């Protein structure tokens, strides 16, 4: 339990009277591929937003790599190595693909205004490195030919790849992906999953991803966390979760639901 890279403990997020996340607790082991599943409205994306600092949760603890990052700013959390993608891709449309990629690279002194004037050589040499890294990463994702195109001209699937490639440029320890397979064709999806497996093995990247495609979840995740109505109702390896009665009830609307609906 103590070696979780990410430990989410008793996180609450209310919107007015709606308890979107209602005491969620789970952890993500280092170098694992963990799937976060649950029916629509279970609070998965909201939880992502709380964990990554985009929402300021009401209460709870989010421990990442040893530090509590709960209610920290999203940029501070990202700089610690927890990088996310969005359900609706956020390609920076009016910027070329290569600029999207280079933006994400860490440790560029030229992102501080004064360094443009006092350390121009350091800025230039880092920029050269970053460009090379970015081109290599684009190669991996078969986006090389599009490097100078505006990101807004890419197809939906290409944007998903770009967003993943861009997130990887940030050298994350933990990558949170919100429905990475949604809206992309199965061949591309397969390639994306292969990338994830390879990155986990070669670079030691940990993944937490929201997914609705059960086949993907069952075949590719080491661990599955199931949410329903703002709570984590089950977690464990895919096989156990699949046969968990609470999970089946949550998805199919089991007994507990029906009685509640009647009263």
């Amino acid at each position, binding site marked *: 339990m103590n070696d979780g890279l990410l430990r989410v403990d008793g996180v609450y997020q209310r919107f007015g009277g709606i308890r979107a996340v209602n005491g969620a607790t789970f952890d993500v082991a280092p170098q694992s591929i963990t799937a976060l599943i649950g029916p629509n409205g279970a609070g998965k994306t909201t939880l992502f937003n709380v964990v990554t600092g985009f929402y300021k949760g009401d209460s709870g603890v989010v421990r990442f790599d040893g530090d509590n990052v709960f209610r920290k*700013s999203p*940029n501070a959390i990202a700089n610690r190595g927890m990088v996310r993608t969005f359900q609706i891709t*956020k390609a920076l449309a009016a910027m070329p693909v290569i600029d999207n990629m280079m933006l994400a690279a860490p440790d560029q002194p*030229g992102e501080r*205004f004064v360094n443009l004037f006092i350390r121009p050589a350091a*800025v230039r040499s880092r*920029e050269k490195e970053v460009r090379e890294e970015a081109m290599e990463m684009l190669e991996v994702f078969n986006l090389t030919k599009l490097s100078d195109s505006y990101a807004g001209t890419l197809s939906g699937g290409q944007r998903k790849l770009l967003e993943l490639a861009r997130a990887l440029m940030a050298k994350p320890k933990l990558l949170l992906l919100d429905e990475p397979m949604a809206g992309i064709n199965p061949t591309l999806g397969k390639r994306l999953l292969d990338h994830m497996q390879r990155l986990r093995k070669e670079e030691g990247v940990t993944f937490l991803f929201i997914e609705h495609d059960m086949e993907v979840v069952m075949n590719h995740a080491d661990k599955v966390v199931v949410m329903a109505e703002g709570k984590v109702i089950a977690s464990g390896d895919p096989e156990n979760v699949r046969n968990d009665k609470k999970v089946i009830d949550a998805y199919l609307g089991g007994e507990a639901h029906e009685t509640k609906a009647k009263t």
Partner: protein
Amino acid sequence: MIDPLLAVSFEAFTQPGFWIGVGVIAGIYTLLALGLQLNVGFTGIVNFGQAAFMAVGAYTMAILVIKAGFSFWLALPASVLITIGFGMIVGLPALRLRADYFAIATIALAEVVRLTAQNARDLTGGNQGLSCSDDDAGLCYFNEWRDVSDSINSFIESTIWSDPEQLFPLLLVTWAVVLIATVGLTYVTNTPWGRVLRAVREDEDAALALGKNALRYKLQSLAISATLGAIGGFFFALNLAAIYPVNFEPQVTFFAFSVLILGGLANYKGVAFGAVLFWFVLEGTRFLDLPDPPFTETRIAALRLAITGMLLILLMAFRPQGLFGKKEEMVLGE
């Protein structure tokens, strides 16, 4: 002989005074609009408060010279710093607002500044304007500039032009600053720093998710814009020899936006062209020679704005990206 319906007396256009006047005001608006370009075109913050920065810069400079006895040359950097400080105080809360609310907040701010200048009469002279100290010392904010201006003109007189216009040195200095600002902004925007600005413009959440402190970049963008606004304010003050609250009406910011749109978004070199074109049309139409009834002076004044507006409409219809803007960036922005 029948008077032509629409006529312009072209004589005015042969006078150097006309061109120098247009040149100075166009240079000033280039500076204002360069700041807006950085804010609107590259950072995605819709700053409608450029007139406020201009007013704070101009008034602070004049007050420091006249009331606090500062040297003009020291008052310039001091008032730039004060304008930046003012921009930060305003930006820190206002930049947390969504883009459209920020725009509303800044236009309100500009009016607060103008109305304050109008009513803080002891400090600003109110509607009487601010120019020189009340006593007999003859301390005016422009005295030290006039000395420099005169020596530039006497140098010109002895070399290339026997009878230089009084405003000619101001024209030279304004455009020298325009050149420096255009080159400087082009440089900083093409760096990793500028890349973060564009990312913030495109999608603030995406920038945050990649670890960029969006608010910090927006504040820096606003600080640079405030600096350019203040410098524009100095030149404005020197051009007029007195500062009045009416000089800083929201119209100033709207004119600067017109310049920006004419020149094209996300492009610095277009700004100067936009400013010259805008002020050439607006000032040139001053010489519209139309039969007095029905075209009274006030009607012609209104007509000038209508013609300028028409120019903008035509531009939007046939070249929505402006003179130098990139169409792709405009279409893909949304």
